[in-house]
């Protein structure tokens, strides 16, 4: 199940000119506000008609300006989860959830009501009305409602942006469940690195209406060009990791392709796959294997690329076995260490955070 988008739309102060393929799994449309993300997802949903281009789901054309095809939204079968839930206020939660079912084509398959209610933890809410739900509950019902219309793909426009951190943490596991249990492809609009690193397989980075980068999460976030996109504090690479063991001193050992990392106790069993995020500003470089250092996590690496930014800093892209790491150091240090592509060094990692929990633990 793949979605291909190639559209052009002039918004006056911004021209959105975007082409990408969403191969399945979660594809994130990532970018700052005003980068054209919502324009793209609305065009896919059929809520906005682009001035020109082509949108296709598998072999089915949804929009084609040359052959004048524009399938109306109610025939596209794309479940849309909006940032502001948009539950129907006059219907109970149950009737909100079942609203789309009567329009699904006969014989279309999809999860049943009780499965979805169970997956999203909303069974107890069924008789209630949207006006009495919390923000997080509303959003879960909205996700269930989209799922139960038996869509070919889910579209999610910043589904967590209107929620506070606690509510976000409440919903993220459900989104992970959705990804891992239903296998439904999802186009996920977000400006949050944390969400994208945790959920997405593919990332399409939008910048001022253009595609700035496309690739896997690991590739995209390890590209030095992303430092400008994300800002110094957010830039960092994402690495796949496996839990190897829990140590009695409260540390969990993870293996990445280039070695082992120690993190504060995680609640994942040995063997579980996860993702870790290492911020560029948390990596220090050393030419020799450092000794007498409090940092636990040191990975051998080779310099792949050095990108100068504005100011006194440079961004160094490192190859750590199969993975890529970013380090932000000063231009002066880079010169003093004689760093250039091909030079071997050691990456001292001050801090690692877990970016992703896969479901199906234990």
């Amino acid at each position, binding site marked *: 199940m793949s979605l291909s988008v190639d559209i052009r739309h002039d918004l006056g102060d911004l021209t959105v000119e975007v082409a990408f393929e969403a191969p399945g799994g979660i594809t994130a449309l990532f970018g700052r506000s005003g980068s054209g993300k919502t324009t793209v997802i609305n065009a896919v*949903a*059929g*809520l906005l008609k682009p001035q020109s281009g082509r949108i296709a789901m598998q072999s089915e054309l949804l929009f084609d300006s040359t052959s004048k095809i524009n399938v*109306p*939204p*109610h*025939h*596209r*079968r*794309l*479940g*849309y989860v*909006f940032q*502001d839930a*948009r539950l*129907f*206020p*006059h*219907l*109970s939660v149950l009737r909100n959830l079942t*609203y*789309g079912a*009567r*329009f*699904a084509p006969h014989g279309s398959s999809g999860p049943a009501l009780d499965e979805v209610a169970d997956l999203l933890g909303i069974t107890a809410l069924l008789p*209630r*009305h*949207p*006006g*009495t739900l919390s923000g997080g509950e509303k959003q879960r019902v909205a996700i269930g*409602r*989209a799922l139960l*219309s038996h869509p070919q793909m889910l*579209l999610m426009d910043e589904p967590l942006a209107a929620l506070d951190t606690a509510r976000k943490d409440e919903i993220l596991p459900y989104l992970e469940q959705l990804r891992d249990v239903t296998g439904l492809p999802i186009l996920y609009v977000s400006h949050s690195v944390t969400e994208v690193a945790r959920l997405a397989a593919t990332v399409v980075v939008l910048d001022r209406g253009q595609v700035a980068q496309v690739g896997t999460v690991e590739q995209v976030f390890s590209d030095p060009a992303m430092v400008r996109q994300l800002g110094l504090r957010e830039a960092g690479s994402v690495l796949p990791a496996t839990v190897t063991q829990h140590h009695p001193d409260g540390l969990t050992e993870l293996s990445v392709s280039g070695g082992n990392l120690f993190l504060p106790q995680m609640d994942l069993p040995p063997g579980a796959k996860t993702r870790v995020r290492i911020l560029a500003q948390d990596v220090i470089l050393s030419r020799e294997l450092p000794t007498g250092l409090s940092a636990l996590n040191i990975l051998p690496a080779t310099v792949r690329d050095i990108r100068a930014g504005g100011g006194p800093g440079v961004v160094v892209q490192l190859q750590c076995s199969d993975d890529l790491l970013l380090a932000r150091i000063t231009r002066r240090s880079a010169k003093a260490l004689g760093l250039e592509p091909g030079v071997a060094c050691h990456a001292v990692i001050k801090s690692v955070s877990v970016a992703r929990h896969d479901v199906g633990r234990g």
Partner: protein
Amino acid sequence: MASLIGWLGPQEWQALALSLKVAFWATVINLPFALLVSQALARWSFPGKQLLNAIVHLPLFLPPVVTGYLLLITLGRRAPVGAWLEQTFGLVLAFRWTGAVLAAAIMGFPLMVRAIRLAIEAVDPKLEQAASTLGASRVWVFATITLPLIMPGLIAGAVLGFAKAMGEFGATITFVSNIPGQTQTLPSAVYSFLQVPGGETAALRLVAVSVGVAMAALIASEMLARRAAKRISGT
């Protein structure tokens, strides 16, 4: 109740019954058109939208006598449209109670459209978009989302239209005259009683009845609208 029946004379009863009948049919006939026109004015863009808006509101700004006269010269039995209606459908409007329904409907139409249009504009189009992404066609979206959400406005519009129809005088008397037992509505009857010496008591009785009907309609609509609003908020 028995004393009330005896309290009103036969001509007064006829006027009250006719007014209720005329107002009921004027409201029922107006509702679907008012819904369609309100939806068009609130949501659709099409050439001639301003013209439609002006035509709908025209009866509000014209002297009712002028509206009645316009009806007479287009729908009278010897006028082209009126003659055609009579030949084709056997429908005669001028000087009949059916004509009173038409006059009352036209006079109440702009009031209904205003109330319903405001209600439609208050419905968040994002909800309608959400329904369409769930597979609902435009007609379904209107029937299952828009219509239930505008119910309080719809009720308010219907009551306004009904009240206007009950009270319509100028256009009605010009188009269908003031024939007791046939086209004499409540306001026409009040007017007639005031023209004859000693008719004040009968006129006053009809005034009391008018006040009663108006109050009852207002209270009923208030209760209906409250119940509809309660259903929307779901509390």
